[in-house]
């Protein structure tokens, strides 16, 4: 029996918690002892409310006009030391002209989302299944007869890259660059990706510089693509966004850039980890894996949902309160950050029976891996389909694939990432 932490010892600013599975234990204690928990600020970062119960995350998600996204959706934001700068920041217009839908509030959010969402419905995704299967087979063809390798670099990162780059009309040659730049954008706190962008690693300023360089290079790349599509429109998302209007106005260049950035980052950094994390949890649960492989058509849909619940590829989304709000006896004030912890909701004992059991037949399995409500993951249909097709094809080609090393995890409290995973394919 491991000694339990008291809730006041739990500090979710500590990114190292997320390098191992320790964060699940912290969430378990918070759910029981302090389900709506004030996590004090640090010298550099704001404090925030942690939401760890399924029901409370539903409540916050159902009020996107009170709990807004336009003041940042990851982490709690940097603490502004200078009071004048803090006041200016508070008064700043909220992301006008440079925002994507993920940091946009009602009523504009849904209008922007509707420009593209027809391409992401389950129906649209189903029509692309043959293409997704072909992409998957090509990826596995490249692995070929190799006995062992890095599952993340060779398999799990490739399919999401192929699918999102395909939707955006980006050529095969762009995959490696997109992989590198989205890693820099979302993995800026990780020493490996800091080194790749800046040649240094370790402290907070390097993380900021890593993200800045990644975003700058991404913007440069997409400016060139936009110039090309203006001259030669194609049947792709970038051409669509260039033509689109909201309330009679074209999108600004900043909005289109932000949209492209969002699509390529969100398309890449999430499904990859559902596949990698799915591989790990199947490997660690040989009975469930054997059941799945005994009758894949029967079990695959349930297995995909359970892999999503289990991995919760996104650790959190942040909101900022705009009104006073009472929840579970706690008072949230305007301007305070609220962080919704999805892995915690997805192991909530009040919702999931035996939540720490990996059960591919779990019914119902209404996990919140994609969030819920106004900002429900636009790409959920593609994510589900990619995970499903990947494991169907993977187990057909490499039925004895085996994880041979510990997952090399991303240093992040935002993305539940696996950077490298050694496997024997045969």
């Amino acid at each position: 029996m491991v000694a339990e932490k008291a809730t006041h010892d739990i500090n979710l600013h500590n990114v190292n918690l997320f390098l191992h599975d320790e964060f699940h234990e912290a969430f378990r204690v918070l759910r029981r002892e302090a389900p709506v928990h004030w996590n004090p600020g640090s010298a550099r970062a704001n404090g925030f409310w942690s939401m760890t119960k399924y029901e409370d995350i539903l409540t916050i998600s159902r009020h996107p006009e009170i709990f807004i996204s336009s003041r940042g959706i990851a982490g709690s934001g940097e603490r502004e030391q200078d009071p004048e700068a803090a006041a200016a920041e508070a008064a700043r217009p909220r992301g006008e002209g440079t925002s994507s839908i993920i940091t946009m509030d009602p009523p504009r959010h849904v209008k922007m989302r509707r420009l593209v969402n027809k391409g992401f419905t389950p129906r649209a995704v189903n029509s692309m299944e043959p293409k997704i299967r072909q992409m998957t087979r090509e990826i596995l063809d490249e692995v070929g007869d190799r006995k062992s390798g890095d599952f993340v670099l060779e398999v799990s990162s490739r399919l999401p890259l192929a699918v999102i780059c395909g939707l955006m009309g980006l050529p095969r040659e762009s995959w490696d660059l997109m992989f590198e730049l989205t890693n820099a954008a979302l993995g800026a706190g990780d020493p490996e990706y800091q080194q790749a962008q800046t040649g240094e690693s370790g402290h907070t300023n390097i993380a900021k510089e890593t993200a800045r360089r990644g975003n700058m290079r991404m913007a440069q790349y997409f400016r060139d693509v936009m110039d090309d599509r203006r001259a030669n429109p194609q049947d792709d998302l970038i051409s669509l966004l260039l033509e689109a209007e909201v309330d009679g106005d074209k999108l600004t260049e900043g909005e289109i850039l932000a949209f492209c950035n969002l699509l390529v980052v969100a398309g890449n950094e999430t499904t990859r980890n559902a596949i990698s994390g799915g591989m790990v949890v199947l490997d660690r649960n040989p009975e469930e894996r054997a059941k799945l492989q005994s009758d894949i058509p029967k079990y695959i849909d349930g297995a995909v949902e359970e892999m999503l619940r289990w991995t919760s590829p996104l650790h959190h989304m942040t909101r900022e309160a705009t009104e006073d709000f009472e929840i579970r006896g706690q008072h949230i004030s305007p301007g305070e950050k609220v962080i919704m912890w999805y892995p915690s909701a997805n192991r909530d004992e009040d919702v999931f029976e035996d939540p720490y059991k990996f059960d591919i037949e779990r019914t119902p399995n209404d996990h919140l891996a994609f969030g819920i409500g106004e900002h429900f993951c636009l790409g959920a249909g593609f994510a589900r389909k990619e995970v499903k097709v990947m494991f169907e094809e993977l187990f057909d080609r490499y039925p004895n694939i085996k994880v041979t090393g510990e997952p090399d995890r991303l240093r992040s409290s935002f993305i539940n990432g696996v950077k490298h995973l050694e496997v024997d394919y045969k």
Partner: protein
Amino acid sequence: MPREVEVDEMTCELHGKCVESAPDVFKLDADDDWSQVKVNPVPDALYEQVERAILTCPRQSIRWKDA
């Protein structure tokens, strides 16, 4: 009072969870642009189904009209 249910056509993205939860109330045909309500007002016996559909709709696009 018999209750009516409605689907927000602006936000529905055709996930079909409502049809799974409440097959006697909602339908989604291949050419529908949003989920369709088959019976309004909803018979008492189907309230529980509708409550589950409201709870699990990914986009939270379903609500009781009087709510």
